[in-house]
């Protein structure tokens, strides 16, 4: 594939100048280099302070009493014993809570509960132990209300209706259509239909959800475990009716987010109100058990796919129905996590296509975007289905996917892509993997198999962003960015981008972030794999502005006419004319500036209107299966992702390896197990909710860069945080099938499901 030409609008620079279009990363000096992360020292010495570590003088500890009923009215609530316990400073319930409009829920604490895990009361006490002792002294009596737990049950007539419009969100599915699916099916040589299910996957961040809040006369200060400092700040200001300049959110490091820490949740509100009431800082962190409902999760889905293909493998019709479970309501945070059919619309060339997505209300906890929401669930189903189609037609799964390659973005007026390196990904990954040859198993009762998947992840939409670059008096630079640091390395790549634009060594560029008051708005929160693509170009623009100002100052000092500034360049912190006859260091220019610092600010130019932006990739997996005991070992994974330019290959590799493993967890061991009689999660702990351990991960976990230069922004990058999960599940399921001829269409593919499937196959009761 040829790189798409970068439009001028994307390269707009300060005062009518134009930024340089970066070519191959090999030609760059800071961008594209594998630099270790900033903040490394703090993290490896244990001195990094997370919100969970914050200890303030006179701080109180808060604990929350959660509902153990799926749907009930609180008939009686007695907190007297809790209040009387020595050391308890405040108890909040629906009876005494200040009126706060907390999104759709009404107030934070209500007199009804709609799922197990909904907060009922909150206590602030001198110590954590006293707070939890107090929780256990609160007596609650519930009057049960009709409840429904399973989405298919909720869709049946006669099910308790949880919303006015019924149990289907908005009363109807979200439908997308192009062409005529029925007609396409008639024209097909082969028609095939299949159903798949995916389970609830939890974020299970290592740092629990919570915050430390101080509400005093100066305003509201929140030390938050968050994916950004601005969204929570804006939401708290709005809900508590405070001016934004009286609300401050601080988050330098967060111990994992994966989509669960984007928005203000009830624990922010409870901690804030407890602080206001007691006049002291309050620390409120969930227990691990409460994490499961409180931090939310991705939906359980039931997906039906139906397709028509020609004998030669051409897709002529595709229908994808997704039913996703959601809680009793969909608030702002939950909307982004709904079941959709998005990836299916774009991934393969198909003129007749329909997606139908239902979100079904049940008395289960609320949703929040979970790393790769929507497309992860979709492709776990779609990419197994594609393999099944390929088999029906008798074509190699890789060839089948290539055959139906879409050059343009079909759902968006057939716009060309800002880049699409999927073909490169297929070829690179297939070659590195050695696609086509199944290896010999390591023991007679084991079987080896290989499988693959495409992946797609929606690229960013145009968003505003700004950043700053300060040239300090000694000539070192400091990027100012209003982000939190999730550990993926955004703060690090920003310094690389700034260094590249400034022409300075990476070591001379630092960064400050993590405080809504002193590091202004750069992104609302780091989610959707957007930070690099949204904030990165703003950082480059800010660096360009600082650079421009530096060159103007240098020009004055070197006696160069302002009209000839374009002849100056900066390399390794030295500004020189084209013929090298005149030079001055950045440090010298800064020194001469004295106290009038050069400060660059930059805004992100909008995305080109006529381009579609999507992230693509291919994943290949080798497994070894001991089918009689249902044990699956992932031996090798090879992932190639076209996310545009890899700003830092070391960090990109971490994302791809880690993301694949998280997808592997969803494919093989992670599942919310809930009793559908009462809506209680049975495995709300970290050993029965099984994340992969060191013994479960593949030793070979390759990350390949197809070296795509994207045209939609000035750093040519698209986003990487989430795509690596998207193809993992189907690649593994397809490999299991390749090894054993057993198709398991219900994720996670746990040993019991394989042993069960094996039994059904040998007794002839299993379909396919």
């Amino acid at each position, binding site marked *: 594939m040829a790189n798409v030409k970068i439009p001028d609008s994307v390269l707009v620079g300060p005062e009518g100048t134009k930024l340089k279009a970066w070519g191959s990363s090999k030609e760059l000096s800071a961008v594209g280099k594998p630099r270790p992360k900033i*903040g490394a020292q703090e993290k*490896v*010495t244990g001195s990094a302070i997370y919100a969970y570590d914050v200890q303030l003088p006179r701080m109180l500890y808060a604990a929350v009493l959660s509902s153990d009923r799926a749907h009930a009215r609180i008939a009686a609530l007695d907190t007297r014993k809790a209040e009387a316990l*020595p050391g308890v400073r405040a108890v909040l319930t629906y009876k005494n809570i200040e009126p706060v409009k907390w999104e759709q829920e009404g107030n934070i604490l209500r007199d009804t509960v709609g799922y197990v895990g909904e907060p009922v009361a909150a206590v602030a006490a001198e110590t954590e132990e006293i707070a939890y002792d107090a929780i256990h002294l609160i007596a609650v009596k519930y009057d049960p209300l009709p409840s429904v737990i399973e989405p298919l049950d909720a869709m049946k007539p006669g099910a308790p209706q949880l919303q006015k419009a019924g149990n289907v969100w908005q009363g109807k599915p979200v439908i997308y259509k192009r062409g005529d699916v029925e007609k396409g099916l008639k024209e097909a040589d082969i028609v095939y239909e299949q159903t798949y299910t995916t389970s609830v996957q939890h974020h299970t961040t290592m740092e629990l959800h919570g915050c430390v809040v101080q509400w005093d006369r100066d305003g509201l200060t929140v030390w938050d475990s968050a994916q950004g400092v601005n969204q929570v700040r804006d939401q708290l200001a709005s809900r508590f009716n405070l001016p934004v300049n009286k609300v401050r959110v601080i988050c330098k490091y967060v*111990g*994992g987010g994966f989509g669960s820490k984007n928005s203000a949740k009830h624990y922010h509100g409870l901690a804030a109100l407890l602080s206001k009431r007691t006049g002291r800082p309050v620390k409120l962190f969930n227990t691990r058990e409460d994490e499961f409902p409180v931090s939310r999760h991705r939906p359980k889905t039931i997906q039906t796919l139906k397709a028509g293909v020609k004998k030669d493998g051409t897709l002529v019709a595709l229908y994808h129905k997704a039913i996703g479970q959601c809680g009793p309501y969909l608030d702002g945070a939950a909307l982004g996590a709904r079941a959709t059919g998005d990836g299916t619309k774009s991934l393969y060339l198909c003129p007749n296509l329909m997606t139908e997505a239902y979100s079904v209300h049940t008395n289960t906890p609320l949703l929040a975007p979970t790393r790769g929401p929507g497309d992860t669930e979709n492709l776990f189903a779609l990419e197994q289905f594609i393999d099944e189609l390929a088999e029906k037609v008798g074509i190699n799964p890789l060839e089948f996917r290539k055959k139906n390659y879409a050059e343009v973005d079909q759902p968006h007026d057939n716009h060309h892509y800002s880049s699409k390196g999927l073909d490169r990904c297929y070829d690179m990954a297939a070659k590195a993997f050695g696609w086509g040859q199944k290896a010999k198993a390591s023991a007679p009762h084991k079987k080896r198999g290989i499988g693959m998947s495409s992946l797609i992840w929606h690229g960013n939409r145009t968003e505003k962003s700004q950043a700053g670059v300060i040239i300090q008096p000694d000539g070192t630079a400091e990027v100012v960015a209003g982000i939190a640091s*999730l550990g*993926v390395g955004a703060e690090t790549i920003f310094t690389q981008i700034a260094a590249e634009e400034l022409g300075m060594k990476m070591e001379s560029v630092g960064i400050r972030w993590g405080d809504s008051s002193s590091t202004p708005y750069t992104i609302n929160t780091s989610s959707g794999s957007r930070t690099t693509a949204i904030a990165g170009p703003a950082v480059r623009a800010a660096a360009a502005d600082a650079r421009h100002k530096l060159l103007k100052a240098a020009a004055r000092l070197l006696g160069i006419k302002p009209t000839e500034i374009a002849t100056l360049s900066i390399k390794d912190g030295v500004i020189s004319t084209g013929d090298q006859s005149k030079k001055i260091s950045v440090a010298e220019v800064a020194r001469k500036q004295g106290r009038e610092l050069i400060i660059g600010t930059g805004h992100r130019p909008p995305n080109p209107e006529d381009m579609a932006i999507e992230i693509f990739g291919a994943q290949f997996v080798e497994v070894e299966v001991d089918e009689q005991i249902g044990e699956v070992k992932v031996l090798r994974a090879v992932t190639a992702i076209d996310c545009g330019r890899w700003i830092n290959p070391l960090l990109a590799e971490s994302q791809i*390896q880690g993301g694949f493993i*998280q997808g592997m967890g969803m494919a093989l061991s992670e599942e919310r197990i809930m009793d559908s009689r009462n809506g209680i999660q049975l495995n709300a702990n970290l050993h029965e909710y099984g994340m992969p351990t060191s013994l479960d991960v593949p030793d070979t976990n390759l990350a390949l860069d197809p070296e795509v230069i994207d045209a939609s922004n000035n750093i040519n990058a698209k986003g990487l945080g989430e795509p690596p999960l998207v193809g993992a599940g189907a690649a593994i399921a397809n490999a299991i099938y390749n090894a054993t001829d057993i198709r398991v269409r219900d994720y996670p593919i746990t040993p019991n499901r394989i042993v069960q499937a094996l039994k059904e196959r040998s007794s002839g009761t299993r379909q396919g």
Partner: protein
Amino acid sequence: MRKNIDDTLKPHPAVKSSEEGSLSQGLAARFSRRGFLKGLGSSVIVTAAASTGLVSTPKVEAYVPPVGEGLQTRALRLKVNGLLYRLEVEPRRSLADVLRKELGLTGTKISCNRAECGACTVIMNGKTVYSCTTLAVRANGKEITTVEGLAQGNKLHPIQEAFIESDAYQCGFCTPGVLVACKALLDRNPRPTRAEIKLALSGNLCRCAAYNHIFAAVEAAAKKL
């Protein structure tokens, strides 16, 4: 009638530093202005010196939480990272919680509080254990190493350097526990195979799943030992 909890507070014997006279940065952090600022989440990058520096301030009062009326405490001698601390805590307090609160050593994290994730891993009398499921009073007199004990002043342990070079961490929250488990491994087996590394780390979860880089970091560190 129950008395107000504040009434039950008598001046406890202050937590005394050892005779060496220096304190971990955690204790100093609670009461020094720099530490107070650190607790406020200052947005300036913490330099190497500030983040690992030992402050020699003898006999500083450590954090003494109130104890509920009628609840007993037990005297405790904790030897952590080569320093001796004398405390009194309720028997139900976990070692992890006491390390973090009373001693200010917040490197050790509590993530599941049920011995199911490894974030609280410390070395106790030479063995890795989950400090969340170890009663503080049962750590009495035992030698404890936390992540804060890996570096010598500003000199990082090879495993810490290897973690930085290999990008063997992402969010970093599991990292202290993983580092401690790595150190315990390398102390008893300086040339571990890949299989031995994976087994030694099989009691530490990393949700960001930095496992592949972690294994590489241990192998790199082993070469330098």
